[in-house]
């Protein structure tokens, strides 16, 4: 009940509620009682007794208000449990149906207004795409036009993507890593995670290890091929890095953290990620500087189709692949037990 208005008890609805509940207007009576009748001398009373009476009356009134409040609250609570719950549930269903219907309607409407797939007059078919297709091979030296686009014309976007991945890995590291304590000893939490990690999985599983021995080299080799051949055939840094990291994760699953830690630690992650991102930034800065100022770039483009061609594209692919592989691997390790 609001205490902002001093006469909140005298509002019409309060009076009505009291009248409904008690059958008479208690406050009016109290006011009438307190009005001194004219011509009549105030009766002599003991001030202490009067104070006690007043105290008792106040207490009584307070108790009654409290009880009414409780009653109202209980009524509301009962309503929430029975009728209200059903009402709110129906409202939820109605609103979600409305929202879903609206989204479906707008999306279908948008799709219906789009030009036909592959039509000649779509807005995306402008001079940019023509330039990429006609001049791309001569300007970037990459047979794979997509690699030429994302690592030469649009290389700044790719730098942003790699940086986002790196930042995501750092954020996961901050959130999920469980540190050693001050003396360099494993903490209680770390030991618990360690035992929990191997709880459900057999250690040194024969089948898994055999599969890993067979598949890990193939996966790593295929990933390296996808990265290194990115400017000649479909693929590139992102997909190749993901394949390499899946090979690493398979190895980690089969042989455990102890063996995998021999070639991948936090230090490796720091060095590789920072080195690759730094190299990417420096290389692209050089390329932008040359291109924007019309200077001659001293990086030869090579004959298109040869493995050493495409100028900066292959080194940039390698940098992106390293960042992606490290990031995915560290995601997995941190998700699994909060450390390497």
């Amino acid at each position, binding site marked *: 009940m609001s205490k902002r208005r001093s006469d909140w008890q005298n509002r019409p609805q309060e009076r009505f509620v009291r009248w409904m509940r008690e059958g008479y207007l208690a406050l009016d009576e109290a006011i009438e009682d307190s009005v001194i009748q004219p011509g009549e001398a105030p009766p002599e009373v003991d001030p202490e007794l009067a104070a006690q009476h007043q105290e008792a009356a106040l207490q009584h009134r307070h108790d009654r208000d409290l009880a009414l409040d409780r009653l109202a609250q209980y009524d509301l609570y009962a309503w929430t449990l029975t009728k209200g719950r059903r009402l709110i549930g129906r409202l939820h269903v109605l609103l979600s149906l409305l929202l879903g219907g609206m989204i479906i309607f707008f999306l279908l409407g948008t799709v219906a207004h789009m030009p036909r797939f592959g039509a000649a007059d779509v807005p995306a078919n402008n001079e940019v795409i023509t330039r990429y297709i006609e001049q791309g091979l001569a300007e970037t030296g990459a047979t794979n036009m997509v690699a030429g686009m994302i690592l030469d014309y649009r290389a700044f976007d790719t730098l942003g993507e790699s940086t986002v991945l790196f930042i995501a890995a750092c954020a996961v590291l901050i959130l999920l890593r469980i540190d050693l304590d001050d003396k360099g000893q494993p903490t209680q939490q770390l030991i618990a995670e360690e035992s929990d990690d191997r709880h459900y999985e057999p250690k040194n599983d024969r089948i898994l290890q055999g599969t890993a021995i067979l598949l890990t080299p193939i996966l790593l080799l295929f990933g390296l091929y996808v990265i290194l051949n990115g400017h000649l055939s479909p693929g590139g840094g*992102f*997909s190749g890095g993901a394949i390499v990291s899946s090979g690493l994760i398979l190895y980690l699953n089969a042989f455990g953290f102890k063996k995998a830690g021999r070639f991948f630690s936090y230090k490796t992650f720091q060095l590789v990620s920072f080195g690759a991102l730094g190299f990417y930034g420096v290389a692209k800065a050089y390329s932008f500087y040359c291109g924007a100022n019309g200077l001659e770039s001293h990086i030869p483009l090579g004959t298109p189709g040869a493995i050493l061609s495409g100028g900066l594209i292959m080194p940039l692919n390698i940098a992106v692949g390293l960042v992606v592989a490290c990031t995915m691997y560290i995601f997995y390790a941190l998700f*699994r037990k909060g450390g390497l």
Partner: protein
Amino acid sequence: MNFVNLALLGMLVVCALAVSFTKNLLTSLIVYMAYSLIMAVIWMLLESPDLAITEAAVGAGITSVLFFVTLKKIHALQGDRDHEQAQK
């Protein structure tokens, strides 16, 4: 070719609905992997092999592995429940 495309797209819709309607988290995760694989085939048919490779490696591979680890962490895999019951 057109029939294959339509069939794949239909399977895509079925997979997308199945992911949200299955009760078991492990099942919905495996259906989600199937969704990614179908998507990779569709990219291939749309003549963008770069996207197909990335979708197969990241969508069906790495993302699912991370989801599996998360499910294991929150003890949502079926084997975990059996294990807990055996402990009790």
